């Protein structure tokens, strides 16, 4: 959360430090970004191996912790997971499996991990997508108005609310909403089993189930966007071009909309993408509370094992998603900010 306070200057900082190449900038820029994203992906893959294969020592012992298992079962499990081989052989198998899209077999669900992940990806995308969109709209709207009328009562109330929501663990907010709206909204899951199978009723049903989880996730995320938008607009407020705009006789409303906001929007937009990891963190907690059948709930279910292959798969997918969002942030920044394009 401190990123809000210190993070704004980072992107610009970085561009300056790196000394962006001249000439056929666009292509080189693109290649550079893709290259560093690939390197990050490689690091994620290695980290995934380190975390789930090397640190546990014997993953099979970790996975069967606290359960009675015979030595034969242990040996069988070891063979099936391939952990009885030497470490380098395991690493080669792991990489090979990844390239083939094979992430191993779940220990709890007795199904291929890749299937589980693809099945759970949709609900998470729906939840995270809706919540992010809502949060952006709310955060920008409140943030802009707070900064524009700084220290007004509106500013104090909206910033105070945002800070409070931000200080709340998301799962707790979820629990509170669950109690408050018990009976009004469904307490969990994604659809009722007795809903008619036609598209219209199904969509309505999912939307009905989506309300509470989406609200919970939005609450914390919008607070973050609000604070970022507010402080980046405050930085623009004293700029001379605003005085010029006012001197031209523009209405206050136009000064804000056409001059101040577009400039203040830049750091915020980038941060929306950079903070995507935080949204995913929230999704894990929120999905657990509302048993929303996404990747977060899958992670929670896998923890009870712990089902290491599933945890590993979920880790890889979530980390890769964040890296993808970062590449998008870089590209978007270039499109939006002519100053970066010119260098």
């Amino acid at each position, binding site marked *: 959360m401190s990123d809000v*306070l*210190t993070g704004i200057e980072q992107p610009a900082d970085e561009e300056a430090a790196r000394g962006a190449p001249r000439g056929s900038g666009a292509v080189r820029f693109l290649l550079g970004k893709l290259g560093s994203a690939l390197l990050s992906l490689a690091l994620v893959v290695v980290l995934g191996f380190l975390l789930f294969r090397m640190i546990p020592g014997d993953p099979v012992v970790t996975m069967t912790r606290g359960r009675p298992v015979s030595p034969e079962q242990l040996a069988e499990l070891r063979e099936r997971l391939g952990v009885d081989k030497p470490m380098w052989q395991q690493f080669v198998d792991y990489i090979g499996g990844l390239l083939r899209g094979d992430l191993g077999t779940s220990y709890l669900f007795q199904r291929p991990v890749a299937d589980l992940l693809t099945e759970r990806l949709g609900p998470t995308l729906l939840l995270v997508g809706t919540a992010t969109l809502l949060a952006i709209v709310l955060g920008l709207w409140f943030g802009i108005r707070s900064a524009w009328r700084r220290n007004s009562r509106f500013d104090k109330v909206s910033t105070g609310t945002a800070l409070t929501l931000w*200080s709340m*663990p998301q799962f*707790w907010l979820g*629990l509170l909403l669950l*109690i408050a709206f018990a009976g009004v909204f469904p307490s969990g899951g994604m659809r009722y089993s007795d809903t008619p199978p036609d598209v219209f009723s199904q969509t309505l049903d999912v939307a009905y189930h989506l309300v509470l989880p989406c609200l919970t996730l939005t609450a914390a995320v919008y607070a973050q966007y609000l604070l970022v938008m507010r402080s980046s607009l405050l930085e623009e407020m004293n700029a001379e071009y605003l005085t010029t705009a006012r001197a031209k006789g523009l209405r206050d409303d136009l000064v804000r909309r056409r001059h101040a906001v577009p400039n203040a929007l830049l750091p915020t937009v980038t941060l929306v993408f950079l903070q995507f990891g935080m949204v995913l963190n929230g999704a894990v907690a929120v999905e657990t509370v509302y048993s929303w059948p996404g990747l977060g709930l899958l992670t929670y279910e896998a*923890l009870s094992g712990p089902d290491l292959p599933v945890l590993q798969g979920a*880790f890889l997918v979530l980390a890769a998603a*964040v890296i993808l969002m970062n590449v998008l942030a870089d590209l978007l920044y270039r499109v939006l900010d002519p100053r970066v394009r010119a260098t």
Partner: protein
Amino acid sequence: MTPTTDETRGVRAITWARRKQATAGVWREFARDRGGLIGLGGLVLIVLLALLAPVLTDETALEVTNTTAQPRQPPSAQAWLGTDRDGISVLLLVWWGARVSLLIGFSAALLSVFIGTAVGILAAHFGGWLSTTLMRFTDFFLVLPTLVLAIALSAVLPRGIGTIVLAIGVASWPTTARLARAQTLTIEARPYIERAKALGAGHRHVIGKHVLPAVLPLVFAHTTLVVANSIIAESTLSFLGVGDPSRPSWGGILQAAFNSGAVSQGAWWYLLPPGIGIVIVVLCFTLCGRALETVLNPRLRGQR
């Protein structure tokens, strides 16, 4: 000529006098921020209460075997905040849970700030390939979803408070590293560092005597925010069930409440207090941190 002990003491005295003056100045600025003062007051009160828990309350009442109360009773004269699933007073649970939550929050923040400061200063001071590699790693860890990484770590390591501290600390250091690096870079660009180097100061002297004292205040302000983050992260991890079950933190209490069906029974007295505890502590830390940052970072002054 080697300095006599008297001269050394004189130099030290001057340094300390200056530091005292600077601290007093910071305090005066800080005291002007009402939010910061409220936050600090709240924190002092909560930490004192948590420390005094063994004196003011009876720990044996936390044992399931010692309780005679009915489970899941709403607040009454006997149990001000009701009872939990085993009939233990929720007030007592939350009071003792504060100790665990604060302990983990502080330790994890210390670990994370320590790693971050070390990485940041080293990267900025030495430059070259070391800096490139370190910052590459920092950027990489910066974007990774912290909670997911912490979940992964606490799933593969043995359960316990140490694991949680390690998981949060290892997952959350990059912001501190960026801060420490930026500050070190600005410090090292100043002429007095060049002078010190010209006089023969080694890496150790420059880092220890010049860079660290200049970086630490900012890092300290940042630490308050890291503690707040760590407490939230701890509660979430405990809620997901990777905490230490023998010593429930606020998150652990909420997990027990959730798993025993407090939501469907509408047992609000079981769910509200631990969460309110988290919100108050985190809010206090955030207020303090924001006030400190405003004091130490003049660019922000007059904005908030």
